[in-house]
């Protein structure tokens, strides 16, 4: 008992000392003392990496004192989403979401959707690239389009899971190029690493995945990047966009953070404030840079509107590709 009291006293003392040091403006908003951050996928995946990056910056900046990352994998993220929405949280919890989760909700016909969560912020993005081995006779995006028009089945695409950003981009690309999206020969791989191996080994005709997966091989000349999927070129990377190559399409993968609908208002405001503070920090800029992520921060209301738009667009793309 004495031990506990002593510890409690210590916490109080530290708390008072800390409070005294925080300027009055910041004190108006109560700080979150703890946060559980749920990544709806396995350790090492994209959601997990973002969760751990957020954890690192929030803790090192002292914006939230204890952040715990929990992984719940499955069903393109829908298992994590369902668990997040249906379990009664014992402490403030937030969920990492992204492009693939939107597709996952649609393709698994999940009962729980992103309408059931409260958007907090979009945090980062990355763009896909279409690559071929250096030895391939496909030199430009126009060559690829010509080949697709001739015989779509003869071009095998190595990419990530059905309903994920690679698959949706490939489908949208085909449609924009005037090729039947259901006719393309899309070969699903488990993650960007396998895609890279498949293209490098010359087993698939083209590879489609996040540009970062291919960056080292494009730099070394083992792979040729035909185009990147973003609205604009990647800074410092000499690869044209789809639009520059005459395909009217821009797709960006993104990930963000949402809160539990049952989160207390005060906690949600504190989380929103902490995230807004986090994205301004140099530590966050550094975290984005080391991972090759694009800063695509959007605050809560913009992010909410974006989610609705994106759901419609991805749903349509999946219908066109014959998945839904």
């Amino acid at each position, binding site marked *: 008992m004495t031990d506990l009291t002593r510890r409690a006293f210590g916490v109080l003392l530290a708390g008072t000392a800390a409070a005294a040091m925080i300027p009055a403006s910041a004190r108006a908003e109560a700080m979150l003392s703890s946060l559980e951050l749920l990544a709806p996928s396995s*350790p*090492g995946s994209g959601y997990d990496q973002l969760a751990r990056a957020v954890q690192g910056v929030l803790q090192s900046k002292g914006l939230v004192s204890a952040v715990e990352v929990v992984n719940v994998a499955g069903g393109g993220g829908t298992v994590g989403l369902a668990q997040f929405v249906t379990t009664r949280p014992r402490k403030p919890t937030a969920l990492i979401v992204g492009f693939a989760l939107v597709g996952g909700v649609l393709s698994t016909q999940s009962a729980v959707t992103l309408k059931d969560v409260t958007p907090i912020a979009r945090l980062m993005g990355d763009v896909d690239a279409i690559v071929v081995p250096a030895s391939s006779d496909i030199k430009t995006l126009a060559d690829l389009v010509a080949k697709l028009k001739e015989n779509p089945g003869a071009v095998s695409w190595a990419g990530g*899971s059905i309903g994920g950003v690679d698959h949706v981009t490939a489908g949208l690309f085909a449609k924009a190029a005037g090729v039947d999206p259901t006719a393309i020969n899309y070969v699903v791989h488990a993650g960007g690493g396998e895609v890279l191996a498949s293209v490098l*080994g010359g087993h698939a005709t083209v590879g489609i995945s996040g540009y970062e997966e291919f960056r080292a091989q494009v730099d*070394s000349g083992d792979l040729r990047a035909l185009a990147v999927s973003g609205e604009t070129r990647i800074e410092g990377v000499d690869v044209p966009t789809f639009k520059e190559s005459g395909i009217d399409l821009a797709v960006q993968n993104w990930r963000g953070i949402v809160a539990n609908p049952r989160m207390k208002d005060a906690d949600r405001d504190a989380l929103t404030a902490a995230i807004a503070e986090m994205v301004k920090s140099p530590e966050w800029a550094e975290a984005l840079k080391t991972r090759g992520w694009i800063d695509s921060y959007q605050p809560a209301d913009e992010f909410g509107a974006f989610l609705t738009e994106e759901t419609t667009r991805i749903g349509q793309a999946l219908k066109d590709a014959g998945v839904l």
Partner: protein
Amino acid sequence: METFNALMHGFSVATTMGNLGWCFLGVVLSTAIGVLPGIGPALTVALLLPVTYGMEPASAFIMFAGIYYGAMYGGSTTSILLNTPGESASIVTALDGHAMARQGRGAQALATAAIGSFVAGTIATIALTFVAPLMVKLALLFGPADYFALMVLALTTVTAVLGNSLSRGLASLLFGLALGLVGIDLQTGQARFTLGIPELLDGIDVVVVAVGLFAVGETLFTLARHRYETEEIYALKGSKWMSREDWRRSWKPWLRGTALGFPIGALPAGGSEIPTFLSYLTEKRLSKNPEEFGKGAIEAVAGPEAANNASAAGVLAPLLALGLPTSATAAIMLAAFQQYGIQPGPTLFDKQPELVWGLIASLYIGNLMLLILNLPLVGVWVKVLTVPRPWLYAGILLFATMGAYTLNNNITDVVLLWIIGIIGFGMRCFSVPVAPCIVGLILGPLAEQQFRRALTISQGDATVFLTQPLSLSLLIIAALLVILPFILRRRRSAA
């Protein structure tokens, strides 16, 4: 020579007192977390990496190395002692490892696992030092058809674990293959046999099935017969050190396990389980007393454990040479490397030699630390087996249940564990071997994916499996492995 000098420089950086301390800490922490139920290497590494943030790169790497090898090793301890494999790569270890423990040879099983891991880790790290780029070039030649053939080859392992009754063994295999069908079909995104339960969308976790069949099923079976049988002695019999005979029987499997583990680990889609299967099969085929397999043959622990650790080092080859993470653990390591500005890829060895060689030197030291830590611990671990029987069983069931939950923080896995445990109990009652089921469950889905990938790329042309030289030769070896024993037996009986 240049490589050698670079490596020596790496050692000089890694062996300062402070760095050795970090390495030791990494090994201790990851071994401790690795033995916790349901926490596989990937999660162990993910949990511990933040500890290294803010350290000097050299110190951080040496700690990574300790964490990486420690996490890989942790799973085998629970496999041997409690029949509860923590991750899929140590499932094969449980087959004979736990049988050894029940005969009072738990210490020898743990020792051969620890020394085998050290030997394999060291040799594989040497291989990584000198042949990583070449290895990776060869690995890339493997296409979907070749992977499929490799899976078929691994599937012949099932012939080594079928048991006495062909029909029972095949039934178990088919049960495993059927379980492997559950979940979203990757190529089409359609759900199969998920009964509308979202938690089944990603399929049934191999670890849940292995722990269910091994730990829960086996424990229930022993409990059911408890009052009819005299107590077996689990604890230590005789010396806790490996005898001369144990060494004689272990060293070749260590080397063969390494030879299988490293190259398959370096394959982008090789997987950590396949080398352990192939090693088990090889050892049984080469053994003078194959009848001991499944009942506590030390070769069956030595080989797969070495293969497991060598493949962990093999995974680093494509990671460093291509920046290609081929396992969840590797993906986490990659993120950690990037924190320190290491950009793995084709130019890594030229651009950042100091960092790479520092890392490789750290791997050697981490591996040695692991051995130094674990050999003395063997004596402590086997004490677990002296716990009174009812407590031990209760402990195993508790451990298994907790582990199933921790895997994915999901209650569905716990329910599944117990359903499968009860099925395992039934299988045990009717003498149906459980190992073929596990082989089917692990290899079935892998083989199916590669098979379909190969056919999708070839647009439905099935000859693709026979026209590729690699694929064809692997399939021929597989066919021989199945047919030859029959022919030999026929000849022997004719003679």
